[in-house]
């Protein structure tokens, strides 16, 4: 959604690059994709799930069960209503729907079907109509809502899992990727049936723990928005060593994870992507 009165982006220099040695470490793990028996109870991470308006990936029920907060962005509510019973065909649809009931349906309400809205409203789902706010995308509104709602100033154990952000209309996909850049200090993972992506902010050095039973081996590092003059990795088949990456030049795609830990340091924000196993 465009602002009604477009204005220049804030001027002023971007933050100067942090020297490599001074960067704090950030860890990443896809343990949320493991079957529930495999993850330790009380592991400390708090998950939220956001569902956007595209077909649910096959692991949607697993992530929903794992989350403490579940938000549907507008037509995402249709997808949960229609899609959850399809993914769990052994159960009565109404049982599935009441079990997989969103906490909130949020957005400008131009896609959610009236009967779906009413159904969930009757079950206690909070409906937050934001049709007046055309300045931010649905995902942006959902992330802002979840971070406001999560207790305490420290969001470091909050991880927002987003379904339906990739594929479909390309401008929506780009807007969703921009949300990762707009909230660099919040862990937000965009998931599809084929892969997941998340931001590796330049302010940190990154340890990515690979859950080989559910992800890999295909991976990539993409400098979306700004070229990188220096990126270094370990753990990949084709590691980067102080390498330049840019659109029009080299970007790291069709790479392979070779070890259980991948480390990445860069002078630029990068998008990490890894394939999901079927």
């Amino acid at each position, binding site marked *: 959604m465009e602002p009604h009165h477009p204005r220049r982006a804030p001027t002023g220099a971007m933050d100067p690059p942090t020297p490599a040695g001074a960067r704090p470490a950030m860890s990443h793990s896809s343990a949320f994709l493991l079957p529930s028996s495999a993850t330790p109870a009380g592991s400390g991470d708090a998950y939220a799930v956001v569902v956007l308006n595209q077909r649910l990936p096959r692991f949607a029920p697993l992530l929903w069960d794992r989350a403490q907060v579940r938000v549907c962005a507008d037509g995402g509510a249709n997808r949960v209503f229609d899609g959850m019973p399809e993914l769990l065909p052994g159960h009565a649809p109404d049982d599935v729907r009441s079990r997989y009931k969103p906490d909130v349906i949020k957005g400008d309400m131009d896609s959610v079907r009236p009967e779906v809205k009413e159904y969930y409203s009757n079950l206690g789902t909070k409906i937050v109509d934001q049709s007046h706010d055309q300045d931010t995308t649905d995902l942006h509104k959902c992330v802002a809502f979840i971070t406001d709602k999560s207790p305490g100033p420290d969001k470091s154990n909050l991880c927002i899992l987003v379904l339906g952000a990739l594929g479909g209309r390309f401008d929506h996909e780009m807007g969703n990727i*921009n949300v990762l850049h707009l909230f660099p200090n919040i862990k937000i993972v965009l998931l599809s049936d084929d892969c997941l992506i998340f931001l590796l902010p330049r302010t940190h050095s990154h340890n990515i723990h690979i859950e080989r039973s559910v992800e890999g081996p295909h991976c*990539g590092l993409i400098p979306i*928005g700004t070229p990188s003059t220096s990126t270094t990795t370990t753990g990949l088949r084709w590691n980067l060593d102080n390498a330049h990456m840019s659109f*029009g030049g080299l970007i790291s795609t069709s790479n392979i994870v070779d070890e259980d830990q991948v480390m990445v340091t860069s002078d630029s924000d990068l998008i990490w992507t890894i394939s999901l196993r079927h």
Partner: protein
Amino acid sequence: MLWRTIRSMEVMAHSSNFLLPKLHQPAKTPANNYTLVVLNQQLPRFMPRLWAQAKMRICADGGANRVFDEMSQMKNDLDRNRYIPEIIEGDMDSIRPEVKRFYSSQGSKISDKSHNQETTDLHKCISSIRHRTPDHEKPNLCVLVTGALGGRFDHEAANINVLYVFSDMRIVLLSDDCLIQLLPKTHHHEIYIESSVEGPHCGIFPIGAPSTSTTTTGLKWNLSDAEMRFGSMISTSNIVDSDKVTVQSDADLLWTISLRNLT
């Protein structure tokens, strides 16, 4: 008012009239002067029309499986012989042996590039097209690609990178939902909107590097000497408000517009 010198920049015109049914295309336009490249994802619903009106058809590796399996179903006609690509090119690690045998027997040229593992299948196809095109025909060259978007994100990024690497060629990536193409910063762009088949949703993205100054006309929310950057403002969910959109920028930009009413 501050006057600024306007660099005289060559105009690059864009039109999606290749998406129109043949009957509706303007006379004497090279609208069917395009090469079609098919990558390995489900074919878009308008594929039969795109196929029929192409000057040449190239399947990139597993794209041949897609044509073999899906094309005749789309046309409700079981005759595979009607949809034979002129060329099948790539590293051949996805194409099924029986598919390769069938098309080879029907006259498709098989261009095996498996020795080259440095570049993607799309890169190889574009490079070959360029190599085969005589210089005097290069300005009219247009390549339409299906199956480049969606699926694995690193594949999508690599396919978008092909637009940047071959920025002097017109390459359009198409899906069921939208098309995308590069607007190089070297030109002032005029995009003619075919409203029967595209729009109204559109967007402009500085994927490679930020823009300090982008100006548009013809959009509902135009940009006026605006900065655009990931992490700040980018133009998504914009709306085309005119038959002609113009874009001028100090950065290479990706243009996208939604597709509609295509079968």
